[in-house]
């Protein structure tokens, strides 16, 4: 059976829009184009009604007790910024300490760094070799100045799932707010803001088969009532927390994606997990010196496979499999020439960080695609290893660590 090229296996970066989502969105570009904030005519009412329906779907998906707790944004970067800076600014008189983790997304780390410049103190927790922080680590980092703990549900690079439910018990007990960047996990693994005691949560539509350019921030309204200072001044949309005309078609698509996820996520997760395991087994059975980066199941996202092929550089590997969309923690894929900070935080050898490839399986991938990719990867790892001086030395029994390399 032949497959259609190129093959998309980078679903942690973004996902295609589900056709059912697109279909739902289309009328809102043309005949139902009204501004949801227009109160004086039916065009506006139709827009508002659609937005409120989407809000309900989102609230249901994450277990929010009220749809008023959903604030629509332009995406998860905005949600993370709004949550972290919004809480920091509102609770400044209460304290100035924030706790996060070294492996968080830049949309969390960079707002934290900016707040540090403004006099806040930030603790960056060190994850273990699998990328996990423990509730005990959080507990011992909390001081009487701590106002916020911000930790992701699941890591975008290595797919490690944090024990948010356990951490939520600690933050609730200590009276500290918990923000969760849930982008990678919502619609793929269990996430419930009530059960997990999450106070703020960032979600993105395009990671769950919805459109790009729309996200949401969950802001708890009771026990405790969370207050934030808004980032944008303007018309006071979204109960004053996020001014700006609502992206009605985007929000409608987001709502539909949430509705589909709520109904289908368990079945999708099981299927995606089977695809990932099929790929993992093929690669590990055929090749020596392959390393899994991140955590073992079930502390791993079903669709994430982050592996290092020793002795083969990641960018060269991606060039070899150019008909397959994946990503790499290799330095060469970024302008910085530094390998992935996430892999380094996990203590992954720099050489192995340069050799890492992230496969992001999604619900639209097939067994045939996995088989094609596995064969292609195996062939090319073998080809590039034949070209690699490190592999030759490894075969000769030379310990690569014993060599005095000339750093450049």
């Amino acid at each position: 059976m032949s497959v259609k090229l190129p093959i998309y296996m980078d679903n942690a970066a973004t996902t295609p829009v589900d056709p059912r989502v697109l279909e739902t969105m289309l009328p809102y570009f043309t005949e139902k184009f009204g501004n949801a904030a227009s109160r004086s005519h039916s065009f506006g009412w139709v827009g508002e009604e659609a937005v409120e329906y989407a809000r309900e779907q989102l609230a249901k998906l994450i277990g929010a007790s009220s749809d008023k707790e959903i604030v629509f944004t332009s995406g998860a970067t905005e949600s993370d910024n709004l949550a972290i800076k919004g809480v920091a600014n509102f609770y400044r008189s209460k304290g100035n300490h924030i706790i996060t983790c070294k492996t968080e997304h830049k949309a969390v780390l960079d707002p934290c760094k900016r707040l540090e410049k403004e006099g806040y103190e930030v603790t960056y927790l060190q994850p273990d070799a699998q990328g996990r922080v423990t509730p005990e680590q959080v507990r011992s980092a909390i001081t009487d100045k701590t106002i916020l703990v911000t930790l992701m549900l699941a890591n975008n690079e290595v797919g490690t799932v944090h024990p948010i439910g356990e951490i939520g018990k600690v933050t609730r007990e200590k009276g500290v707010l918990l923000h969760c960047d849930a982008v990678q996990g919502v619609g793929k693994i269990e996430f419930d803001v009530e059960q997990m005691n999450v106070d703020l949560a960032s979600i993105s539509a395009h990671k769950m088969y919805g459109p790009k350019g729309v996200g949401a921030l969950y802001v708890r309204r009771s026990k405790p009532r969370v207050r934030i200072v808004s980032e944008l001044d303007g018309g006071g949309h979204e109960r004053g927390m996020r001014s700006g005309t609502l992206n009605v078609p985007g929000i409608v698509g987001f709502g539909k994606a949430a509705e589909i996820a709520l109904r289908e996520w368990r079945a999708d997760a099981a299927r995606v997990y089977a695809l990932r395991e099929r790929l993992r087994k093929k690669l590990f059975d055929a090749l020596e010196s392959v390393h899994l980066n991140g955590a073992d199941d079930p502390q791993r996202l079903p669709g994430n496979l982050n592996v290092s092929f020793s002795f083969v550089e990641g960018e060269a590997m991606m060039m070899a499999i150019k008909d397959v969309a994946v990503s790499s923690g290799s330095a060469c894929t970024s302008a910085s020439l530094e390998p992935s900070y996430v892999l380094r935080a996990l203590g992954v050898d720099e050489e192995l960080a340069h050799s890492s490839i992230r496969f992001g399986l999604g619900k639209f991938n097939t067994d045939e695609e996995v088989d094609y990719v596995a064969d292609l990867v195996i062939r090319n790892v073998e080809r590039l290893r034949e070209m690699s001086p490190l592999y030759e030395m490894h075969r000769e029994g030379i310990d690569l660590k014993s060599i005095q390399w000339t750093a450049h």
Partner: protein
Amino acid sequence: MSYSDKVIEHYEQPRNVGTLDKEDPNVGTGLVGAPACGDVMRLQIRVNPDTNVVEEAKFKTFGCGSAIASSSLVTEWVKGKTIDEALTLKNSQIVEELNLPPVKIHCSVLAEDAIKSAIADFRKKQQSRSAHSSPTAQSVQPEAE
């Protein structure tokens, strides 16, 4: 990252991949770079000791497509040249030929270092051979520079 056609061509059809006998007194080996930096090049040349002409050149490279292409290109360029001619090779010539973007210039620098290091190794062997009049086995250790 988009690659020039020449980089892709060398990457897909690399010239002179392989290994020469590093114990051979007429073979010079240059091993440069570091696994932690994501690039290691090993360049080997077999030199005719009477004419000082590079008769054979082989490489193996751990690195990105541009690093592989740079080393492949260098093996082609040095073949048939005297070692003195080979020493005049500049990384800027590699950058120009392969149309490397600024972020990949270090690949060309590494390739220039590799050829210089291989020639230095060959010369060292020749000197110690004339000094001891017997071939000296070189260790597998790379040049520590």
